[in-house]
């Protein structure tokens, strides 16, 4: 539509008219058509009624809902923390093993100490793995106290 009066209004033009996206000339032309066609007027009235209904739907969460920022921050900064912690832990473990191997203690003491340390690490890894698996399926993970 470009200023001339169309014989029939298109669906697109009717929508643009309803949503205030037409030029003044197009608007005037559609208004004339609305006056002459009762069928068009009826359909337009239904669309307008729904539009007004949506204007009352603000869809805002009630007060007290926390911002999503805290959770986003923990998700986008978490990898840096994990990388630093893992790198530090790896360095300490490497240093510990080197000191342990170079120490002048007997083989039996080395085996016993190694068994205790490896056992603790395996248990810790099991606990972390179980918690990780649980977190993925826990339906209450977002519930705050």
């Amino acid at each position: 539509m470009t200023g001339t009066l169309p014989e029939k209004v298109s669906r697109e033009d009717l929508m643009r008219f309803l949503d205030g996206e037409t030029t003044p000339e197009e608007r005037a032309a559609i208004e004339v058509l609305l006056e002459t066609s009762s069928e068009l007027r009826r359909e337009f009235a239904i669309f307008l009624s729904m539009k007004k209904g949506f204007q009352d739907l603000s869809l805002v969460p009630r007060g007290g809902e926390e911002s999503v920022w805290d959770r986003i921050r923990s998700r986008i900064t978490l990898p840096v923390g994990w990388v630093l912690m893992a790198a530090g832990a790896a360095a300490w473990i490497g240093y510990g093993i080197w000191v342990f191997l170079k120490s002048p203690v007997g083989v039996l003491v080395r085996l016993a100490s190694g068994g205790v340390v490896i056992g603790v690490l395996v248990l810790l890894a099991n606990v972390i793995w179980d918690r990780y698996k649980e977190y993925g399926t826990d339906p209450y993970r977002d519930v705050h106290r």
Partner: protein
Amino acid sequence: MRRDLERELLRKCQRGDARFFEPVVRAYEPPGMRIALGMMGNIDDARDALQDAFVKTWQSLARFDLKRPFGPWFFQILRNQCRDALRSRQARFRVEALDERLELRAASPEQGPERWRERRAARELLWNALERLGEDHREVIVLKEIQGFRYGEIAGILNIPEGTVASRLFHARRALAAVLREEAADFR
């Protein structure tokens, strides 16, 4: 948020400083929440989708061209996130009762209680009818009627021509009217 300020914040974010992402998140959270709520139907799934969309935005920021406007790009990511979530087994569109956690726009004081009740019933009908619309129809209705974007903005977010936006809106509104007719013959 001013465009130049937003661009500056995003430039700092691209260098990896997450502190500058906070004002961006806070500026886009309210419209993002409205879109996600309209798409997902309930606060919990909407919040999850919004969070995931912001995280994906952060992860893709290095590829973002600062000469382009940020809003349409972010809303495109959010829209894709909502659609992915709806297709996954973890979420589905389920409407939350308006009374529970969603605030309604205040009725104007000159309206009487009768009129207020009528409008409230109409709002609830509309909200519940969204559940029965297909994804394509629902998203265009949400972007136009709930968020109030203009056709050009919707076209940018959905990556379709403006004429298609108008056409899709027509079909979406017709589908919605049909659902409403089924649910309440006396809808005004």
